[in-house]
């Protein structure tokens, strides 16, 4: 969110120009010589050096940016197409000036420089206030070095973009300097690992300087929400400023003003906006509409569920994010649509009017690039508004923007540890928990009936797993029930019994079916006890990993197969029992087989206790998953008893 500050006046140009480490257009022999990047030898291109020097000029910040890139492989030529993005809004909030760009190729012992001119730069209005400057370097070859520099002016100085030290290609050196005038007091928001280990203080007060080297490229990996949560970066939020005023006697007076001195100030700032107020204190005529007719006949929990269902079914989420309502409650009621904050605030108004306690809760979802909240009242940390609803014995976190999703199941990227409830007083960050007991529980009974193998399968999915499976279209559901060989359960879909039930806030989905398959060999049978698994194959194929694995939610899976040994048969062989866990205990697995009379019971469990597995544990995790997926595929061998087999053989001879 961009907040404009136009209230600060009388500020003068401040700061000392900090010289760039690499001079535009001057190249070093080692830059031409560089052919690979030590820490990413397969990189197609590399940022040799980039820098941003941020200086204040009045109420505008000038970011002098310079980036130099070398193409190392043919596939890196595409980097020669450059897009610079800015937010103009309606008030020219950001603009790009003094753009220059050039490319150099080292040919026959000399530098061949091609400079881009104004006609090569295209400005594109991409909508919603955003614009891009696009350009393409000519003659990009392996070994080319291209660079560009520009000044990005930013009038929004409450929240400073700061600098991201990483790129989609590796970066050898990334430098950021900022000179903050003494009348501004900014708080620093840092993220990453290297940034915390880098000394950024200088001998000059208010001047900070970071120089990070050897930064890996960032790319999305499976089982993560967004790499933005892990980037090395620094941002700033204005905490306080000094202003000068002259009183009626001509005396100058300096005053220090704190932007948001406390969380309560920030909460008030939000809640005092007229649109917001319209939800918190609706007019009498609207309040009458909010009273639920049969509300007094329901207990609070039933009423909460009813109102939640009403909002999710009858109000359309327009897909727009944000923490603030843009329309008053009247419009939302009339159009039956709104952004996330508006829909949730409508539910809040309904709840409050029907005497259920609810407060707006701001969160920073996963992928918002704010993995840890800063304990300062900074509005820009948050990107979603949901609700915190208090019943007598429990607190629920609620988002009323997804039709068909039960009340206590937030989107998985909303599973964050902290949030900011907007209260009338004493607002502060609070810790959040997301209680659930998700799981994939499979129970099968396997037996033999006149040359056929008969399998009764009962799959019970719990909480998040139930929510996910419960939203599947029938075709997709059949696909999920399909095994590795592409065989679907041989039952017509109308005979596939799917029962969705709720039990005290828990979501339970039961799926049952039976199959009968002819046996090709009745002398010896290889029976795989578990036809369905959470994973048929190991989901981790990459050899290594840059970012942590995020499973998003914990679960406890149970598998149980009861194999009835037919008369005349005996168990010949079965997999070994094992029990294992990752070193930190985040993931554990057990597999056991017992035989009682003519029943062989195979049980297994997979339990994930931590959603986040660090990248350093990836190799262990990958191997562990291989053990789980292969073990769950191992067969039990049943064969005809030896004396019976002998009898059969004799009868064939005769």
């Amino acid at each position: 969110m961009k907040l404009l500050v136009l209230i600060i006046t009388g500020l003068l140009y401040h700061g000392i120009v900090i010289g760039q480490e690499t001079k535009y257009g001057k190249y070093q022999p080692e830059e031409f010589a560089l052919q690979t990047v030590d820490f990413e030898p397969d990189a197609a291109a590399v940022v040799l050096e980039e820098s941003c020097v941020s200086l204040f000029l009045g109420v505008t910040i000038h970011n002098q940016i310079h980036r130099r890139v070398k193409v190392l492989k043919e596939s890196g030529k595409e980097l020669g197409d450059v897009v610079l993005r800015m937010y103009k809004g309606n008030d020219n909030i950001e603009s790009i000036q003094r753009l220059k760009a050039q490319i150099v190729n080292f040919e026959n012992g000399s530098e061949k420089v091609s400079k881009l001119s104004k006609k090569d730069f295209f400005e594109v209005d991409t909508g919603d206030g955003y614009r891009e400057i696009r350009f393409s370097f000519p003659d990009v070859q392996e070994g080319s070095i291209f660079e560009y520099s520009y000044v990005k002016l930013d009038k929004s100085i409450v929240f400073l973009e700061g600098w991201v030290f990483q790129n989609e290609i590796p970066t050898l050196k990334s430098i950021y300097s900022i000179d903050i005038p003494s009348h501004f007091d900014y708080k620093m928001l840092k993220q990453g690992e290297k940034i915390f280990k880098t000394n950024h203080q200088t001998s000059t007060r208010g001047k900070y300087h970071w120089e990070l080297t050897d930064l890996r490229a960032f790319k999305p990996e499976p089982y993560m929400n967004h790499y933005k949560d892990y980037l090395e970066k620094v941002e700033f939020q204005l905490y306080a400023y000094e202003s000068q005023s002259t009183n009626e006697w001509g005396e100058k007076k300096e005053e220090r003003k704190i932007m948001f001195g406390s969380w309560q100030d920030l909460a008030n700032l939000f809640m005092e906006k007229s649109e917001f107020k319209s939800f918190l204190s609706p007019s009498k005529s609207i309040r009458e509409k909010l009273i639920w007719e049969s509300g007094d006949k329901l207990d609070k929990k039933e009423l909460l569920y009813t109102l939640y269902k009403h909002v999710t079914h009858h109000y359309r989420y327009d897909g727009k994010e944000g923490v603030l309502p843009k329309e008053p409650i009247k419009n939302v009621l009339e159009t039956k649509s709104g952004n996330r904050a508006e829909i949730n605030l409508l539910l809040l108004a309904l709840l409050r009017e029907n005497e259920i306690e609810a407060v707006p809760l701001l969160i920073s979802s996963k992928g918002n690039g704010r993995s840890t909240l800063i304990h300062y009242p900074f509005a820009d940390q948050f990107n979603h508004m949901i609700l915190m609803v208090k019943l007598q014995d429990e607190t629920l976190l609620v988002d009323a923007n997804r039709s068909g999703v039960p009340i206590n199941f937030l989107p998985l990227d909303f599973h964050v540890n902290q949030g900011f409830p907007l209260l009338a007083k004493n607002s502060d960050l609070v810790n959040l928990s997301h209680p659930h007991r998700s799981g994939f529980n499979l129970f099968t009974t396997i037996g033999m009936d006149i040359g056929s193998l008969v399998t009764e399968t009962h799959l019970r999915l719990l909480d998040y797993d139930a929510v996910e499976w419960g939203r599947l279209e029938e075709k997709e559901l059949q696909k999920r029930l399909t095994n590795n060989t592409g065989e679907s359960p041989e039952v017509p879909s109308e005979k596939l019994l799917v029962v969705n039930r709720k039990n005290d806030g828990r979501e339970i989905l039961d799926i049952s079916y039976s199959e009968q398959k002819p046996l090709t060999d009745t002398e010896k049978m290889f029976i795989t006890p578990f036809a369905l698994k959470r994973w048929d194959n190991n989901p981790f194929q990459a050899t290594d990993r840059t970012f942590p694995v995020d499973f998003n939610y914990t679960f406890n899976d149970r598998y149980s197969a009861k194999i009835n040994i037919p008369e005349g048969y005996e168990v010949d062989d079965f997999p070994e029992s094992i029990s294992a866990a990752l070193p930190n205990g985040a993931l554990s697995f057990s597999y056991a087989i017992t035989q009682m009379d003519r029943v062989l019971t195979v049980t297994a469990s997979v339990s994930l206790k931590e959603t986040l597995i660090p990248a350093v544990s990836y190799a262990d995790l990958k191997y562990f998953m291989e053990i789980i997926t292969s073990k769950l595929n191992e067969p039990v061998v049943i064969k005809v008893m030896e004396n019976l087999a002998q009898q059969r053989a004799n009868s064939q001879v005769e």
Partner: protein
Amino acid sequence: MFHLLKIPLHCGVFSNLFISMKLFLSLLASMVYCPLLLASGPIGVLPETYSILEENIKVTLEEDFGYVEEVDQSLLLLSSSALDHAQFECLINSFTKLLDFEAKIINPLSGKTLQTIKRKQLKEKNLVSDGTLYGDNKLLFFLPTPQQYPIKIEYRWKRHVSGNFHLPRWHPYHYFNQLIKKATFEIAYPEEIGLRYKSNVSLLPPTEIQKEGKVSLFWELSDLPSLTESADDLPEVATAPVHFSMQGYRGNMQTWEDFGKWMHLLNHGKGDLSEGSKALVHTLVDSLMDPYEKIDRLYKYLQKNYRYVSIQLGLGGWMPENANSVVQSKFGDCKGLTMLLKAMLQEAGIPSDYTLVRSGSEAKPIDLDFPSNQFNHAILRVPLEEETIWIECTSTTLPAGFLGKSTMDRHVLVVTENGGVIDRTPSYSQSNYHRINHNLHLELLPQGNAHLHGTKVIEGFPASTFTHLHKNTSEKEFTTFLNSHTGGGLVIQEFSMATENEGKVPLVNLKYQGDVQRFYQSTSKRVLIPLSWTTWDLEEITTGAGELKEMLIIQLNQDLEWDISPPQLSYSCEYYSLDILADLKDDRLTIEKKLDIHFPEDITADKRNSVFREIKKALNQQLSFIKN
């Protein structure tokens, strides 16, 4: 065959071309296009009507080859679900201007106008498709935010297009869940310019009026029910001029031959090379005798030294950039790169033809009976004495003579100096366009693991995928691709890949070695080894035939004997033959598999998938051994 979801609004552009990466031809056409293309949500599941539409469209062609389109639309929104239906969007560019615009939001009960929106209140943004650096198309748009329902919205707009290369196409239906109360389409044209149209069977012929040298055609439909799912026979009228002109370039599109003449006119002089470039061509090819080798050499030079960058401005949407400009910048779009290679081949003494194609693996075939602009991409045809070579000039990895899935097996318009000629690109249905020969040597290690050395010779489409990925992803990403597309549990430690195209067929030689985690299962009595550990991406075989061979040699390092008889399968049917042979000698197990697929052209996707399931079932077995 019309499909609602692919129909743009009465605008004369090709919907499925609009988002194409290599788009160029359609960009120039001004249009008011259909937001339906972007629609998502519960289409097909909600049977009710969200809105009711009345619409009159009048198109007037002028003697100077421009035309004016006037639209008068009355829309009754019944609920908030119809909000998308009220969206106005109009594409403008150097040829298209929105002259007038007015929208009124009216309370249908009282008849009172609640709001009037004028031209200056429309929002504007650039419309640059993915893969294009810059284009001069802009979108004017407006989305009403009614406060109540039902609500009536009246739109009136008029736009002028200075050039009639594209004429509007009439689709009365714009959205699902929209009832069409009345829809009219009138197109008037001077007799000397002429007009052709094509409507589908569900439409009656238009009313025709001739007056003072002008002809007017008029269609009217009323009370069309709202739709909840796509249909094949929706009413539609396509129009195209006989004579046309864009920016002074006059042409005729009554026949493909005439259409091609106009394209040739646009291309005139674009293939001139500087003396330096000519000299370079000779340096590259003069030592070669075989024409294909010359083509191959020049194509490889283009692939290595030039890159695809698309900038579409004005007539540049159709007119290639001068070959010399491409040489200067070392980049170009499909037209520019094609023109450059054509010029280089010309210098090498090999004539070739600039060719227009509708690109896209899912693109509908062009309508051969209706010569008009139906293309979105340019390729090169090189007719040699004994064969024709087709070249995709934007690719950096394909061999000369192999087009890939997005332009293969379809009609194209070849632009010759004598005009346009329809030709067809190859279908690549022979098995050498999908052939894999995989040899694996495994050594079993304790705990179910194994060490693996493999070699794989891949030909045809899968080879082009491998080459593309190898070139355009990092080593780490490519290793992950190999891990996941070779067999479960593989952790590749080393690999090398060489692209050794077999003439016009992509060919890749892959060598790798690594460990396989949990390759086999071990119980107290047995060892179980998968008959087919490797991943066979059968679904990739879409071109008719495929051939997969695999030889797996496993060093067991333990004394094992067959538990159950070894599989020796030799199966042949209408669509495929599969041979499997497993043999155990000493402590070495050999598994040979050979699959030949030969699908007829008209096989359905369902049948193909059921065949794949059958094959996978046959392959999905465990070989069981008793431990001695």
